[in-house]
């Protein structure tokens, strides 16, 4: 009996050790892959058409999702802010609350999460399918580097699209907050904008959101193409790579967000 539990414990420790090693290995492979993407970026930049195509695929085709999400997030921020702040007679500040929340946090983070679901999955399953159907090996045989031709343009397209999407999300969110707060709930319009303008700063709040979304763009695009490129070349493998891309992107965006907030806004 005692021997049994000791064996179980032993196996548990082994499992933890293995998964930790697996995690570190993947993490290291990801860093090397990111470095490869960055080193190969100049080659891709020489072919802007490929990148424009990818900005279209990741950015323009996510636009409707981002705009709708932004609108409703802004509206719910205004509504929640109103319900709480009107207890203190401070409902005039909902514009400020919504704008700060959107530009600093929700804009970049929710955009990155939606991006992972909308564009990241498309990227990893596309590259994964290319891997599974030996298109990538075919390119290698024709002396075309698939990293330069396929992976890097997709990565750069995502990196370019993300900050633009985040800014559009924030702007739509503020429009939604205005719609809900001023038009529906009847908050004074002058107070709505002036409170916002008095408290939101371009350098600190808006720029920190943009810096965040650039980091998220790099992380989300890198993880999506990394999982696709390194997937097991079967139908199941492509599916699992796509799932992993979304899960890893979402988690790393949230972790990265905390670290970036601590760095940019300073918790000291």
């Amino acid at each position, binding site marked *: 009996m005692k021997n049994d539990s000791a064996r179980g414990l032993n196996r548990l420790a082994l499992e933890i050790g293995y998964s930790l090693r697996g995690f570190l290995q993947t993490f290291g492979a990801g860093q090397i892959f990111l470095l490869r993407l960055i080193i190969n970026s100049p080659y891709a930049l020489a072919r802007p058409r490929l990148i424009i195509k990818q900005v*279209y695929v990741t*950015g*323009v085709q996510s636009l409707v999702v981002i705009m709708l999400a932004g609108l409703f997030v802004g509206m719910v921020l205004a509504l929640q802010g109103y319900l709480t702040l009107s207890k203190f007679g401070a409902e005039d500040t909902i514009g400020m609350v919504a704008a700060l929340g959107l*530009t600093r946090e929700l804009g970049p983070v929710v955009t990155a999460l939606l991006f992972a679901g909308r564009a990241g999955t498309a990227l990893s399953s596309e590259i994964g399918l290319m891997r599974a159907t030996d298109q990538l090996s075919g390119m290698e045989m024709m002396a075309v580097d698939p990293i330069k031709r396929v992976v890097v343009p997709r990565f750069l397209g995502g990196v370019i699209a993300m900050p*633009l999407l985040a*800014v559009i999300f924030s*702007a739509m969110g*503020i429009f939604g907050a205005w719609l809900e707060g001023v038009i529906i709930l009847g908050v004074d319009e002058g107070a709505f904008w002036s409170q916002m*303008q008095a408290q*939101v700063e371009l350098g600190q709040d808006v720029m920190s959101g943009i810096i965040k979304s650039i980091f998220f763009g790099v992380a989300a695009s890198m993880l999506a193409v990394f999982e696709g490129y390194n997937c097991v070349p079967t139908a199941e493998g492509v599916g699992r790579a796509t799932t992993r891309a979304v899960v890893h992107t979402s988690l790393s965006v949230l972790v990265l967000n905390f670290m970036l907030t601590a760095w940019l806004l300073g918790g000291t």
Partner: protein
Amino acid sequence: MQQTRAVELGTGLFVFMGILALFFLATRVTSFDSYSGDEGYELTARFDQIGTLKTRSPVSISGVQIGRVTSIDFDVERLEAVVSIRISSRYNRIPADSDARILTSGILGGQYIGLQPGGADEYFRDGDEIAFTQSAVVLEQLISKYLFERGGDGD
């Protein structure tokens, strides 16, 4: 070819929308307007007590904001707080004997510097020091003063 054109058009529109959104955030959402750069002139003022005044706190005259606090320092020699403020060059005819007070906006609001115009013919110039200042009122000091005076009445 048709499709390439649609892609380029869509991407162009997308980037344009992004820039438009950024422009909206910069102009409508933040107070991007007046004195953001180096224009205007700088004054200093010394206070015994600045309360919760911070850099970027507003400086106003008759309730109209004319500048911001740019830096706060402590003079070890004279044991006073030294506050530098930058005033928009539009307001370049403020009498040189005006006094500066640290006031509080609202009950829970932040503190700001209010200028009270004097009557001199001279105007403040860049680098001048505001000679007449009034420190911030600290709530604890006010309460204790009130309590001690009440105590004195009772005797």
